[in-house]
């Protein structure tokens, strides 16, 4: 029965009327509730945005205006701080360095995590549970603990101050994370698919690349999002393992502390620019977040 067709029996007429009535009543009752809901949500969003707005506000003010008094919006709008960052190679190289090691880390992590996660989700083997727990413990390892040994290790093998050093160091927590997330998604794929493919004569590598990976592509998307997130925001290891050649933007930002105090405007502009890549990434994965954020474990 479609909604557009006209009712044929008296009973149907009564039924329709009851449904419409019910709907109207529910709407009237829930309208204030709807508005309260929206109000609370708006309040939270304002809470999230306010500090970021303040950063943005400062990045468009000259240092004199910032220190001269509190202004709620930039009265003398200036882009001098952004110009300074985008024309000075010691500044913009910081962004390039950060993005370089983040991308390297994402690539390394996902390539080694995919087969490992498959093994954990499909097979039992000697020591599997202990190995999985050991992996998770690396996720918990405080970077501060590894600071000194990392410095010495990478210095010894000649990787100090390279992008590879930071990318490898971030593997400490990113590979376990990737294995953990992917394992959840892979366990959601029925095993019959694997068996059918093998019966059809697929070799393991071909099955994995042609059939399995496309099936968990949204899981891979979510995993990459998390890998990006944790590598991009980490500072302690990244700044310890680099000096000038591969310095991440986060440690370039400490330059703003000069002899004459902190250069607030430039600090704010640099901070604003670090937020942008994150927003771009979220925009691309926004449709997967809703489902995928539960890491395949609902």
């Amino acid at each position: 029965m479609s909604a557009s067709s006209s009712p044929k029996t008296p009973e149907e007429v009564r039924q329709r009327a009851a449904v419409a009535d019910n709907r109207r009543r529910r709407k009237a009752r829930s309208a204030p509730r709807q508005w309260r809901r929206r109000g609370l949500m708006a309040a939270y969003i304002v809470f999230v945005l306010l500090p970021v707005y303040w950063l943005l506000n400062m990045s468009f003010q000259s240092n004199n205006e910032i220190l001269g008094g509190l202004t709620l919006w930039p009265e003398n709008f200036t882009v001098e701080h952004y110009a300074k960052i985008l024309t000075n190679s010691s500044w913009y190289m910081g962004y390039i360095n950060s993005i370089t090691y983040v991308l390297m880390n994402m690539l390394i992590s996902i390539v080694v995590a995919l087969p490992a996660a498959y093994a954990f989700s499909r097979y039992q083997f000697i020591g599997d549970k202990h190995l999985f727990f050991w992996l998770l413990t690396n996720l918990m390892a405080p970077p501060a603990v590894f600071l000194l040994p990392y410095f010495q290790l990478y210095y010894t093998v000649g990787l100090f101050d390279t992008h590879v050093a930071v990318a490898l160091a971030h593997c400490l927590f990113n590979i376990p994370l990737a294995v953990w997330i992917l394992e959840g998604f892979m366990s959601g794929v029925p095993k019959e698919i694997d068996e059918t493919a093998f019966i059809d004569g697929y070799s393991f590598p071909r099955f994995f690349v042609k059939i399995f990976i496309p099936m968990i592509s949204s899981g891979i998307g979510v995993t990459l999002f998390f890998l990006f997130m944790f590598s991009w925001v980490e500072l302690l290891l990244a700044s310890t393992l680099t000096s000038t050649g591969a310095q991440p933007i986060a440690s370039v930002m400490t330059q703003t502390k000069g002899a004459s105090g902190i250069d607030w405007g430039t600090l704010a502009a640099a901070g604003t620019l670090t937020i942008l890549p994150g927003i771009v990434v979220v925009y691309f994965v926004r449709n997967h977040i809703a489902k995928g954020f539960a890491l395949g474990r609902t």
Partner: protein
Amino acid sequence: MNKVYNNRAWWLILPMLLLVAFSAVIPLMTVVNYSVQDVFDANTRFFTGTEWFKEMLNDPALQAAVLRQFAFSLTILAIEVPLGIGIALIMPKKGWQASAALILVTMPLLIPWNVVGSIWQIFTRGDIGLMGWSLRELGYGYNITSNPVDAWATIILMDVWHWTSLIALLCYSGLRSIPDAYYQAARIDRASKWAVFRYIQLPKLTNVLVIGVLLRFMHSFMIYAEPFVLTGGGPGSSTTFLSQSLTTMAIGQQDLGPSAAFSLIYFLIILLVTWVFYTAIMNMQKDNNKGA
């Protein structure tokens, strides 16, 4: 799922194992090595056994840091978990509002941690920060560099700002996986809003909440950059958490032995708590499998 017993699966794990071992096992062995020795320079070192561990465990400054750390982690969990569930429940579910809300809510998670510190440093300064300035205009002598209560409140507010989104997004995606039929059944039964939450939504959220609490506990226990930038650990040492104590000791003072011993104790505490969580998750999954 019934898993096949096959030890050849080790081959699939091997590359991952080598990489993680390189970045975890070798450094950890170095730490263990330092923790039982007194290192003067490259060639002079003495075996000290458990001396450093005893010293660290009896150090009042570190005991205080451990207590502060637990107080901090438990406080932010107590605030962020209920708040995150609440946000997840009121987030719009479709249309452009849903996309916009998702992007805005996710944003704090993707800001580098030291930038989060800088944002809040700028925001809370009494002279140029909106929050600091407003509070002073309202007549409250807000000052995070001299008043420990203000410093604590600000750090907790900052962490709530930074990380509530994680819990909210996890719960949001947990809620999205509940079939409509459940809600329809509840409507037929005339279930109250509370009953719907208690008996339909919350049980579905347990799994994601365990993940959320686990991640939040771990990260709050390692918190370093945000308070370091915002308060520098002060006033005094009232906001000096474990990571910062450790970094000061290892890099600042170059006390290799004691800081290595401290590292291991620190790691063991996290490990112990994690083990409890992990066992809980595993048992829960077992129960779920039994139920299904």
